[in-house]
């Protein structure tokens, strides 16, 4: 019994420690990026995102914030941009699809690396999947109004799984 307790105590301490040494530096870097608004300045080089998916230039910042800081933080920026009227429904839909697949990439990836996963594989596959999925959807959704599209898809949903989106 004492052995089990000792095993659990040591093991959980090690897990928390290995994660702390990853999380704390990440949080410091992210705080610096937030305070110095690094991402606002970095939207230029990343405008290829809006070109690939044919979304507005304003969509670049929400993409970046979500990819780096995570879904909740990204959602805040998305909602703010949408309120300011900078994002079309199509933009909003595509950003959301990308971000539910791929967000907080550094934090999530390194957490799994801390327990022994192959980080490059995780990061590569996740990013690639998000790009492919969003790209395919961006080709399918040409019209500006996604709500119209959703109504059409509602019927198709019953017939064919491929048609869901």
């Amino acid at each position, binding site marked *: 019994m004492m052995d089990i307790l000792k095993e*659990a105590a040591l093991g959980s301490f090690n897990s*928390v420690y290995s994660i702390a040494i990853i999380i704390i530096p990440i949080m410091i870097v992210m705080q610096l990026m937030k305070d110095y608004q690094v991402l606002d300045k970095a939207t230029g080089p990343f405008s290829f995102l809006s070109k690939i998916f044919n979304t507005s230039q304003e969509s670049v910042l929400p993409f970046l914030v979500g990819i780096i800081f995570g879904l909740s933080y990204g959602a805040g920026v998305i909602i703010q941009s949408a309120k300011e009227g900078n994002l079309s429904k199509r933009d909003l839909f595509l950003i*959301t699809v990308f971000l539910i697949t791929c967000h907080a990439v550094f934090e999530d990836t390194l957490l799994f690396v801390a327990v022994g*996963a192959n980080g490059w594989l995780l990061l590569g596959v996740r990013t690639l999947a998000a790009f492919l999925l969003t790209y395919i959807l961006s080709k399918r959704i040409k019209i500006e109004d996604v709500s119209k599209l959703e109504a059409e898809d509602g019927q198709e949903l019953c017939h064919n799984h491929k048609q869901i989106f």
Partner: protein
Amino acid sequence: MIVKSVIDGFKKGLETTWMLAKIIVPVFFVVTFLQYTPILGWVAELFKPVMALFNLPGEAAIILVLGNFLNIYAAIGAIKAVDLSALEITTLSMMLSFSHSQLVETAVAKKLGISGFKVVFIRVSLAVVSGIIIGRMGILL
């Protein structure tokens, strides 16, 4: 200014560590104890056929459930507690990085106007497909 950012970041890092410690430690204790009872064995036996798809042991089902219903931290606590190979950890991590914290994240995505069904469907499908591919890839290696 930089100093303040570093201090703020450090504090956030500590807060996050504390928050995840509160999740990881109990999960780790429970899973470790379960390993000395027949319960984990029963669960493993029950999920063996499904987990075999991903070339994972039955116990891995617990990790996937924790990750999807709670969060990545809970799953990580369980990954550490169960004895797994590097490939199994990578497969699980791949699946979990696509599909985790479903309750919280689906709620966030719904706020952005996408249906909850689509969110869960996209993420779970990606997790299943990537899990099968990476799990199988290991057999080839």
